[in-house]
């Protein structure tokens, strides 16, 4: 029998970083306890893990780090409940656990030779950071065509990964378009909701794939813009969220129709989602 899928791998918290100005989102960097441990956790952008706080419980979070960044795992966590609150208060050096990697991943093999349009909103940018970092890695960059990234947040303080965003802004192998909802002093970049900005940037749908990750309202209004640009359902990829527990398709909680978001997702194409009931 394979290893027990309920047992977490111990990891050490090395950084508890307040990611957003409102302090509601922290980014946690975990170090593996041994090389062997790291080898036992081979992951790809788009996957998630059940992050375990011993004594409090487990919760699922998208992996924000990329496998091209060896030695550590990064997660960004909003403070909403027991586990996330315990994480926010956690001292660096504490031992936690990770269970995974779980779920499927962004189909990077199918993205090869294509232009990639990445659209993210607010807090949902975590696994997109993993994907972009992976694609920009020198040994991978040549596999992909143009990379466009539209990332919107309510205000500048709520944008995640500001250091990475600065880096990407300066690069010429990725077209980064950051936007905020309303004008704010000191922000001299774009202003506007993600759907409107998508329309303005108008990425071509020719030989392109769009990957969209964000709150339901953003997706609801951005989807028509993508469709208007000619993106077909097979060309649109989404990462779903749902309440998850076991992460391995057994506890019955996270299904959308006959698919489990944890095991058969969380990455789905719009075409696949169109076959499932709208219950997510």
């Amino acid at each position: 029998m394979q290893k027990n899928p309920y047992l977490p791998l111990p990891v050490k918290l090395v950084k508890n970083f307040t990611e957003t100005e409102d302090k509601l989102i922290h980014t946690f960097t975990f170090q593996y306890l041994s090389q062997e441990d790291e080898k036992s956790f081979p992951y790809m952008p788009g996957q998630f893990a059940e992050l375990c706080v011993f004594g409090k419980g487990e919760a699922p979070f998208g992996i924000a780090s990329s496998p091209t960044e060896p030695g550590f795992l990064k997660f960004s966590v909003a403070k909403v409940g027991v586990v996330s609150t315990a994480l926010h208060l956690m001292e660096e050096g504490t031992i936690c656990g990770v269970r995974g990697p779980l779920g499927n991943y962004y189909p990077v093999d199918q993205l090869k030779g294509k232009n990639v349009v990445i659209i993210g909103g607010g807090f949902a940018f975590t696994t997109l950071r993993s994907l972009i970092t992976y694609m920009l890695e020198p040994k991978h960059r040549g596999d992909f065509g143009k990379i466009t990234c539209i990332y919107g947040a309510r205000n500048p303080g709520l944008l995640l990964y500001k250091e990475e965003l600065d880096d990407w802004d300066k690069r010429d192998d990725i077209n980064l378009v950051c936007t905020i909802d309303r004008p704010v002093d000191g922000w001299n970049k774009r202003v506007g909701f993600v759907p409107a900005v998508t329309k303005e940037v108008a990425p071509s749908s020719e030989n392109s794939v769009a990957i969209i990750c964000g709150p339901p309202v953003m997706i609801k209004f951005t989807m028509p813009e993508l469709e208007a640009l000619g993106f077909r359902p097979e060309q649109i990829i989404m990462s779903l969220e749902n309440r998850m527990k076991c992460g391995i398709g057994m506890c019955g909680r996270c299904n959308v129709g006959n698919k489990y978001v944890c095991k058969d997702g969380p990455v789905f194409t719009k075409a696949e989602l169109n076959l499932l009931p709208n219950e997510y």
Partner: protein
Amino acid sequence: MIIAKNELPGLLDKLAAEYELFAPVKEGNYALFKQIKSGAEACFEYLNSKVPPKGVLFPQSEKLFSYQTTGEGTKMEEHIDSRKKLVFGIRPCDAKSLVLLDNVFNNDKYTDPYYMTRRENTLLVGMGCNDPASTCFCTSVGSGPFDSAGLDLLLTDTGDAYLVEAISEKGKALAAQMGLKAAAEDQKAAAAKAQEAARVNCRVNVEGLKARLDANFYDAIWERFHEKCLGCAACTYSCPTCHCFDIVDEAVDCDGCRVRNWDSCMFPLFTLHGSGHNPRTSGKERMRQRVMHKFKYFVDNFSAMACVGCGRCIKNCPVNLDIREIIADIQGEGRSDK
């Protein structure tokens, strides 16, 4: 092979010495599968147990592992139960339910070591149903009063004895180990007669049900079904094929254990996101999920309905919400007795 009824308690005593033996035990007005130490505790005058014996393989609450965290790391201890068990007197519907649950706990990507270890170490001795209850509809959903799916041995009550048929290799070995005598011709005839006479009178028409469920997710028909439902877990906790669970930690500081408990899709909090969003906000969505899961999604994934027709949900529901009526309504057959 044959077991005379007066020999059974002695036989069970011997089995109890070697296995963790589970058999139906009278509990007030109903029967429950409990672990017995002597054959005298078992009572086979019963239609079926109040709650199914799936708890032997998948307990309502179980420790997955315990842990102790120090500065250096964490010590974890798995609690996998590999003790030999035997469930004596399980009805064919409940045995079939375990075959269905095998699909869940051993899916295309992962294996649950807790359920599967118990499953591999548990023998199932089935008791066929000479007199199925009026709420049983096993024959409508792919089972039957003498269905052998999942069983190692199948017993048929002939009046003063039980005819024993070996179904699996493990069953053959068990029968040999028990030293069972061969059955006489008249005993075999009596058993055949009993099997022939067993009638499941309740029929539920499920032909074309999945096709209707493929198409009616957004239909108004779902507005009505849930109205009287209390949203409790009486049906789900009585159901032999239900498998939903929650995982929590029970600990004092960093010493404790991770525990798995049954959960129910009928509870509002079941699908509540941390953000506050709930894809199933009302009883309507939850009732639809229950019916869809049992009669469509499970069929999509495993080509079988997640229902064995045991009728427990019908009998245990505090408001007499009846799955047979819901199915009949979906099939457009209305409710004939109303």
